[in-house]
């Protein structure tokens, strides 16, 4: 990787954990960012809140468990994780049991959050 100016980056996740390859792609992008010393924050929006559902186990389906992998993000110094509060409520989720500690936001707050970054990567 060439030396480059640091940029502030928010990954905006929008899709369910297993319905497509996007959740895994976003997770890999987050881990690569940390490995290359570029910090990123995460926002789980809409169906992506389902990535935070506790007690996932997709091994019997021959796939890696997304929830378990998300739990490792703090080890890579990825600590700013935001979540769409309305979407979490729609799925009747108890975010205190999520694999990651998150900060719930409303629509207006999500907009305010997003305008604070140089780049938005929509997954």
């Amino acid at each position, binding site marked *: 990787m060439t030396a480059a100016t640091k940029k502030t980056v928010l990954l905006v996740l929008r899709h*369910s*954990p*297993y*319905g497509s390859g996007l959740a895994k792609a976003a997770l890999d992008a987050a881990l690569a960012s940390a490995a290359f010393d570029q910090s990123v924050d995460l926002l789980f929006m*809409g*169906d992506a809140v*389902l990535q935070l*559902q*506790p*007690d*996932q*186990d*997709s091994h*019997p*389906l021959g*796939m890696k*468990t997304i*929830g378990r992998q998300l739990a490792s993000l703090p080890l890579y110094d990825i600590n700013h994780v935001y979540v769409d509060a309305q979407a979490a409520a*729609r*799925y*009747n989720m108890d975010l205190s049991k999520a694999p990651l500690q998150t900060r719930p936001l409303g629509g207006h707050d999500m907009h305010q959050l997003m305008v604070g970054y140089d780049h938005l990567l929509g997954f």
Partner: protein
Amino acid sequence: MILHTLNASPSSAAFTDCVSIMAKGDALVLMGDGVYAALAGTKASKTLQQTDASLYIMTADALAAGVTNLAAAVSRIDMEGLVTLTETFPRQQAWY
């Protein structure tokens, strides 16, 4: 009588279209992202119950997604259960 299979989340048009067609005597099997429609206490699971169709969920798919708190009307089935339903119902409609 239709056997519906739903492989899309409650926020999809597939869910809305599926629900608009479901009727008493039909059965619905939730699979893949469809399992989230079974979550207890959600608008989606209430909507499903109001259709008066029989509701099933693929156990392995539910476990993968961490969907453990099921609405009471939804019964868990395994792959053999799904095959049994296809034996009983003369036709299947896939929603995705």
